């Protein structure tokens, strides 16, 4: 089934790229999105079944693919608005949509990849497509961001490949199933602990560029600053889920051996350092998109901490990823509208948004409440669970440190958002007729509402998927 999906994606993307006609693009985009929805559904009904030799519909992949599917619709919708306002050349548009489709397909492939090498191939492919999308503006700063993202991530992913090669010591044989994840998990006890430690560190280092945690987080931050907001929404959410999945797979293999305690310490270190660095950087933040990017760094740090403490932390970490995806994507779509008002993402150029655009301001306040994990945000529940697990696991001092850092982050983000809403109007601001209709607020509102609804009335299917995803962990 997945093979057909990839062929569909390739055909759609190539025909958009070569035909270069708006009507054709629209039809093919809708066709592709329907195909993706069908695949997400098919994956659920054929859960835990192998597909197309190298793929398997695993619970965690299904959950992430649902998130991706939802965000694909919204991202395509906001891409249309963004391109209408910013670019005139049909060629640029068709390249944009072609790459967007390929990116979505590559991410889907990464979610369902069962063969570790194929997982790597899909992750590397996302890098290439994202770099093209970051370069969309064709400006000098876009070249710089695209270059940095491409180069740092390529080296990171190359390092992760060495880690994956180390895992292949155990599988050995040159048949099709030898290098499958399920097979390596079974053989994990026979692996030399040294080998598995090396593999885990290399994979964590390499895929940290994708997940956006310490050590290689900087590439993703620069990419956010420049990329079109709908693409930023992908980089910050579903692409980080891809990086997480890469690390999580190897973590599950490590969890079968005695090296698990050591791996937890490494993850805890990465998580705490991520939150710490996010705090430091947020204290001197001047740019809205960079602020959101560092907020993603903080949330990914919390996910790492959640995995490291274990127990209820596993559940909380995966749920945290889902809620973070919904909220952060909405925030990036929303900031594009703010940019249309002030023509700038710099915080100093903004102010008095409450008077200029009251409806948008209410949504900005809502996003502030949700991203800083104030109830009724879904992130509140997951962060609460992570800290509960930390206190139960005798990580009290680290928990207090993390809570202290989170308080600072809460203060900084609130201050910057309040500056946007209530600061005196910037001198050079002249009132323009609004280019956005209020209809385009609805998808953001749906995403925000979903992140609250899912935590108040959690559907059992999500809990089931998460529990079977962490079933391999003791």
């Amino acid at each position: 089934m997945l093979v057909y999906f990839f062929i569909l994606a390739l055909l759609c993307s190539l025909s958009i790229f070569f035909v270069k006609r708006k009507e054709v693009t629209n039809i093919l985009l809708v066709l592709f999105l329907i195909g993706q929805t069908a695949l997400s559904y098919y994956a659920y009904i054929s859960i835990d079944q192998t597909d197309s030799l190298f793929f398997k519909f695993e619970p965690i992949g299904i959950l992430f693919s649902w998130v991706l599917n939802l965000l694909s619709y919204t991202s395509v919708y906001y891409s249309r608005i963004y391109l209408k306002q910013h670019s005139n050349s049909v060629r640029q548009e068709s390249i944009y949509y072609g790459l967007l489709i390929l990116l979505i397909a590559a991410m889907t492939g990464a979610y369902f990849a069962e063969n570790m090498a194929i997982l790597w191939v899909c992750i590397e492919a996302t890098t290439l497509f994202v770099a093209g999308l970051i370069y969309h503006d064709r400006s000098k700063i876009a070249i710089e961001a695209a270059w940095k993202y491409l180069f740092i991530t390529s080296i990171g992913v190359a390092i992760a490949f060495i880690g994956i090669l180390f895992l292949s010591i155990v599988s050995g044989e040159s048949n099709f199933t030898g290098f499958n994840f399920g097979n390596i998990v079974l053989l994990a006890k026979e692996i030399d602990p040294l080998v598995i430690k090396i593999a885990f560190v290399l994979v964590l280092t390499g895929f940290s560029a994708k997940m956006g945690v310490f050590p290689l987080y900087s590439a993703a931050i620069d990419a956010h600053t420049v990329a079109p907001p709908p693409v930023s929404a992908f980089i910050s959410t579903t692409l980080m889920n891809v990086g997480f999945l890469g690390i999580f797979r190897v973590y599950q293999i490590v969890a079968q051996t005695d090296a698990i305690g050591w791996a937890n310490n490494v993850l805890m270190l990465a998580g705490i350092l991520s939150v710490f660095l996010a705090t430091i950087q947020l204290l001197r933040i001047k740019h809205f998109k960079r602020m959101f990017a560092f907020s993603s760094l903080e949330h990914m740090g919390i996910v790492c901490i959640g995995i490291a403490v274990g127990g209820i932390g596993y559940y909380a970490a995966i749920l945290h990823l889902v809620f973070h995806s919904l909220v952060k994507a909405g925030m990036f779509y929303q900031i594009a509208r703010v940019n249309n008002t002030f023509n700038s993402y710099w915080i100093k150029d903004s102010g008095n948004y409450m008077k200029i655009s009251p409806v948008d301001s209410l949504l900005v306040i809502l996003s502030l409440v949700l991203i800083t994990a104030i109830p009724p945000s879904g992130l509140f529940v997951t962060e609460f669970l992570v800290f509960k697990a930390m206190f139960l696991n005798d990580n009290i001092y680290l928990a207090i440190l993390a809570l202290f850092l989170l308080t600072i982050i809460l203060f900084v983000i609130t201050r910057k958002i309040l500056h946007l809403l209530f600061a005196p109007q910037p001198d050079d601001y002249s009132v323009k007729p609004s280019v956005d209709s209020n209809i385009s607020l609805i998808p953001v509102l749906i995403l925000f509402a979903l992140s609250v609804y899912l935590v108040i009335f959690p559907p059992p299917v999500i809990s089931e998927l998460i529990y079977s995803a962490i079933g391999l962990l003791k």
Partner: protein
Amino acid sequence: MDYVFIITFAVTLVLFSLFERVKKFIYLISLQGVLLFGIALVNLLHIYTLELVFILLETIVVKSVVIPLFLMKMMKHNQLKRVHEVHVPVFYSIVITTFLILGSFLLSSYVNIPKLHTRIFAIGFASLLFGIYFIIIHKNIFSHLIGYLIIENGIFLFSVGIGSQMPVLVGLAILLDILIGILIIGIFVNKVKDRFNSIDIAMLSQLKD
């Protein structure tokens, strides 16, 4: 037999830190491709025709013909002749490179993993470290691409040293990914040159807080 290839490969690493001409970098990359073929061929346990063809494709065709030709084209497009700007004097670079190679051979003798070809593993590790070092000491992004290629060659050696045998289909996907990645990085080098009139990394410093 593979001693010859491994030592020659080590020599190419030292030469990388000695040379300043861009053309010679490209010749060395091409030579490394041929050496990789030799190392892979000697250490292949059982040679099936399909795998032989694949390794031939990966090393000789891609690594020592297609990529160097692409680099030559880039060199002409960007009018590169010499790499003047290096952070570290050549003499120190050679000393450091020698120590990297020695260090990785010493380290590999402590690594005790069954089924591991220690010598190939060591030279792969040295190549990886040297690639990162090469990127650090150079200031222009064309040399960074060369450094990336050295890292990729190191990873190829790793995979031979570990004796990993992926299905040909998977290997082909990996090869395609890496090749497209290198082509796109190369295209971005050209774009940087066109827009900034220079490929100095100092030009790329607008993005910060």
